[in-house]
């Protein structure tokens, strides 16, 4: 089954067209990196795939489920790590994990959460409220969420932002683990060097059109 199948997808805000007629497939076990200049529509495309926005025309399916008509089924398979972090400032790291995973119908045990927090390097701050977290720590908590949730499709919006060297390595490790268990990763990024280390395929979104990049082109940097 194809993980992401996008067919003639277009998005416009009024008369302003963000992108049009995008078509591509992403298979399980692939990590797709979407590049492009600011305002090209990378995050908009990611948010459409995350079922947070609806396309103006065209269709997309996630693991065979229609992304517009079968939103709830799609939402069971995906997880989005975005700029907003989706964390409640007044809750602690552990409480945020419990709540976020509870919304997905999962209930991790205390030892599981502790292991995930330790792995992401924020185990010592498990009981600290999120309002005291730095941007990098919030990002690491998002990674802990993904470690526990183990989604089939991981959607990452600028995953390397605000992360130090070990955070980048941790992100790449999480992506590798997702791919190893047959999952799929779709990321938007400006960080070509870091993304090409881990992505198996990619694309450049520019001027409303998508230019696909093969794994060979990614490895040799031939397209950039």
């Amino acid at each position, binding site marked *: 089954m194809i993980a992401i199948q996008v067919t003639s997808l277009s998005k416009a805000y009024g008369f302003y067209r963000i992108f049009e007629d995008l078509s591509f497939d992403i298979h399980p076990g692939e990590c797709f990196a979407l590049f492009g200049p600011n305002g090209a529509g990378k995050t908009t495309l990611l948010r459409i795939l995350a*079922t947070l926005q609806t396309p103006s025309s065209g269709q997309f399916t996630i693991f065979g489920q229609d992304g517009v008509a079968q939103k*709830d089924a799609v939402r069971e398979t995906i997880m*989005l790590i975005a700029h*907003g972090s*989706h*964390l*409640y400032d007044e809750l602690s790291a552990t409480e945020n994990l419990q709540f*976020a995973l509870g*919304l997905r119908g999962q209930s991790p045990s205390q030892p599981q959460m502790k292991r995930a927090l330790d792995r992401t390097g924020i185990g010592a701050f498990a009981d600290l409220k*999120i309002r005291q977290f730095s941007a990098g720590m919030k990002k690491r908590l998002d990674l802990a969420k993904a470690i526990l949730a183990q989604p089939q499709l991981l959607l990452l919006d600028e995953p390397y932002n605000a992360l130090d060297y070990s955070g980048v390595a941790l992100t790449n490790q999480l992506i590798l683990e997702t791919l190893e268990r047959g999952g799929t990763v779709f990321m938007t990024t400006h960080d070509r060097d870091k993304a090409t280390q881990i992505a198996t395929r990619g694309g450049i979104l520019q001027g409303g059109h998508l230019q696909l990049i093969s794994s060979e082109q990614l490895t040799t940097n031939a397209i950039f």
Partner: protein
Amino acid sequence: MLFFALIVILVFSFSFSMDQDAARQLIAGIIWVAFTFTGIIGLGKSFTSELQNDCLESLQMSPAPKGAIYLGKVTANFLFMLSVEILLFPLFVLFFNLDVIEAVGTLLIIFFLATLGLSAVGTLFSALTVQIRAREVMLPVLLLPLAVPVMIAAVEATRGALNGDPFSFYSQWIHLLVIFDIIFTVVSFWLFEFILDS
């Protein structure tokens, strides 16, 4: 919320301090003005924690039925509003010298039903207005016209109970509250998914 309600009680109690008969005629309306506007302050805050860090998106992306999220929010708002009302009501009794011993049970039922109606429809409009810049203004503007039937029924039933009228004299207002509660809860439950996804 509590501070606002205390100010309302104090202002009205001083306004009617010279005329206890007038106060007794108007007390049901004063109680529900205080309860409703205090409740609106609370309802306006019910989704503000989701504004931080785009948490509204996490509710939107949850595969859980959106109705469950709605019912959770309604329950929280209802319990919060009812708790404030139970704290405030003794102050009304004290400041307006009300004799409520025989009517306490009926008044609690009226408070329960009217608060449920207000929180059912208020939670929906709170979700609708949470992302609007002027949400503090828009929430009462949208909510109050819809809440008027609940408020009228609550005022009439409360007046009947406080006056010591036989239950059959004002029971139709309590029936009306039950009907509004059912309509508001069912319709809001159904609409919540569309509001959260839009």
